[in-house]
């Protein structure tokens, strides 16, 4: 593995985007002198000045609303919500405005903004610091929802999100902010939004997942391989708009589907993926679809967190049970 962690990739992408486009503005709580509580914006203030790197008062609704105003004026604001658990006060601005501005003005005003937030659990963080409610945003028409699962994808997808003409909720799996490194060129190349990444090919079973769960899922796929079961692993990456085709093609090939996410089961985005398959690849299914997810309870405080998060063992077990259907 190479040199760059996921959080560094975020910083590189932000710096690159600010470098190439003077309309890119970074704002949020502690993004300036502090460089962000995870250091994702480190050095940007020094480099781009306080008109382009703006520490905000402690006001999430204002952060999102200010982004809407800036975006309508042709800027490309990248707002940071310090943790996803604090995005809820901004939901009104996101749902009622950011996602609709273009549509309600019939294209007169656009809203090319990005709202970044570290998300997910597994790092023994305090209460309210381990949320994964991506499904809420993936339901909202007019938004795009992107979740990178590796440094290179964080870099390429964040650049794409910033350059995108529409609002993007960009959720960064903080559990893997520094979990592993990759080597790639900081050359400004973006990845396409709106397509899945097939991280591992296989004919026997399809794993679909995103964010930090990629790690456990790839590990489970390794274990399955030892038993001669070849699992395909798909990183959804863009939840909205969803690239259902890649998933359907894989299920047509494997006939077995296990979806893995950290958010609670009921109403999680795994349901949407399962529903797409029940509509578009039903005849290919050799076994019931399985979802391995967080439970329908509140993310526990750190002492119990590991009971909540889908583990490799659970992910493996679901696959093995799925394989038992003839």
């Amino acid at each position, binding site marked *: 593995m190479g040199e760059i962690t996921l959080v560094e990739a975020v910083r590189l992408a932000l710096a690159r985007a600010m470098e190439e486009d003077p309309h890119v*503005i970074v704002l949020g709580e502690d993004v300036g002198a502090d460089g962000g509580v995870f250091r994702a914006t480190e050095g940007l203030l020094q480099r781009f000045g306080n*008109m*382009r790197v*703006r520490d*905000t*008062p402690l*006001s999430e*609704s*204002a952060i*999102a*609303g*200010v*982004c*809407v*105003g*800036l*975006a*309508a*004026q*042709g*800027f490309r*604001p990248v707002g940071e919500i310090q943790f996803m658990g604090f995005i809820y*006060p901004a939901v*009104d*601005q996101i749902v*009622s*405005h950011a996602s609709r501005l*273009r*549509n*309600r*003005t*019939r*294209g*007169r*005003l*656009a809203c090319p903004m990005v709202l970044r937030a570290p998300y997910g659990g597994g790092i023994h963080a305090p209460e309210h610091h381990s949320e994964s409610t991506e499904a809420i945003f993936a339901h909202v*028409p*007019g938004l*795009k929802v992107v979740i990178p699962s590796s440094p290179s994808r964080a870099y390429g997808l964040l650049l794409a999100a910033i350059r995108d*003409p*529409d609002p993007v909720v960009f959720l960064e799996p903080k559990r893997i902010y520094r979990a592993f490194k990759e080597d790639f060129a900081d050359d400004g190349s973006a990845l396409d939004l*709106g397509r899945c990444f097939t991280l591992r090919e296989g004919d026997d079973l399809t794993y679909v997942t995103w964010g930090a769960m990629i790690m456990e899922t790839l590990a489970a796929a390794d274990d399955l391989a030892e038993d001669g079961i070849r699992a395909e692993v798909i990183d959804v990456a863009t939840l909205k*708009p*969803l690239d*259902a*085709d890649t998933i359907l093609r894989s299920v047509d090939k494997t006939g077995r589907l296990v979806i893995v996410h950290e958010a609670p089961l009921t109403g999680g985005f795994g349901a949407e993926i399962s529903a797409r398959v029940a509509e578009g690849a039903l005849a290919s299914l050799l076994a019931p679809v399985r979802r391995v997810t967080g439970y329908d309870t509140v993310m526990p405080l750190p002492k119990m967190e590991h009971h909540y998060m889908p583990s490799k063992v659970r992910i493996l077990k679901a696959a093995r049970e799925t394989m038992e259907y003839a």
Partner: protein
Amino acid sequence: MVLTRTFDEKAVALQRTGRLGTYASSLGQEAVAIGVASAMRPEDVLLPSFREQGAQIWRGVALKEALLYWGGDERGSAFKEQKEDFPVCVPVGTQFPHAAGVAAAFQSRNEKRVAVAVGGDGATSKGDFYEALNVAGAWKLPAVFIINNNQWAISVPRSAQTAAETLAQKAIAAGMPGAQVDGNDVIAVRDAASRAIERARDGGGPSLVEAVSYRLSDHTTADDARRYRDEKEVSAHWKEDPVARLRTYLVSQNAWSKSDEETLIGECVQAVGAAVDEYLSAGVANVGDIFDYLYARCPPDLAHQRDEAVAFARESDDG
């Protein structure tokens, strides 16, 4: 003001006859809209609530566009003229943070322009109102926040909305100046708004202006204010009707004659009538439009849904 009133009357009439959607008349509050709009420069940006049609029209939003919006057609917010102005804002108070954002854009570009947001007395109870003022104050943004205090938020009187004696004093919480002005006096409103706007333009930072007017109409055409408001209170306030007051003043200055008035009314009626004709003959938009403006580029999945909707509309001869 007369144009606004003529427009309002017609709009209510259209609603009553099923040709317009629920409508929020600005009867009695025309001086706020016009006083503010006339204090702005064209290159400033207006961020209105749903009761500032007067200001929108003054700034160049076409009467037909306003009718389309209230008639339930998104094309009504695709202003041909005021391309940077925000559309009508229905979720109360949510326009204020946008104004801070627009003002931040002006500040970042070093432009001498001002973002002017208008909301009601009820809007001052929203977190967004306060967060926006606070950010604007902290960043010293070129933004002006106008409160059109018509003394009612649907059925909730101003006195029940907040214990603050004035709404202007809410500015103090954000460290900015606040002023209260007679909202039925168009000249006073214009003056107060001008000071605030020019102050912001000159780098003096944001401020708040409370214009005290009165809602002479029901909240909207869906409301019946007699359920909660004494008719006597309303009739008393007719004495302060800003249109009549301006006429009295102009007449007293020998600056206004019966024939001026007839001409003006005639012109307004004519303009509104023409706009109504345009509106009624605007035809319906394409079904595809409900998909085509959501994103800059329609994602494949959505394009599929679009096809389905278009096909259904065609089948039912309604596309």
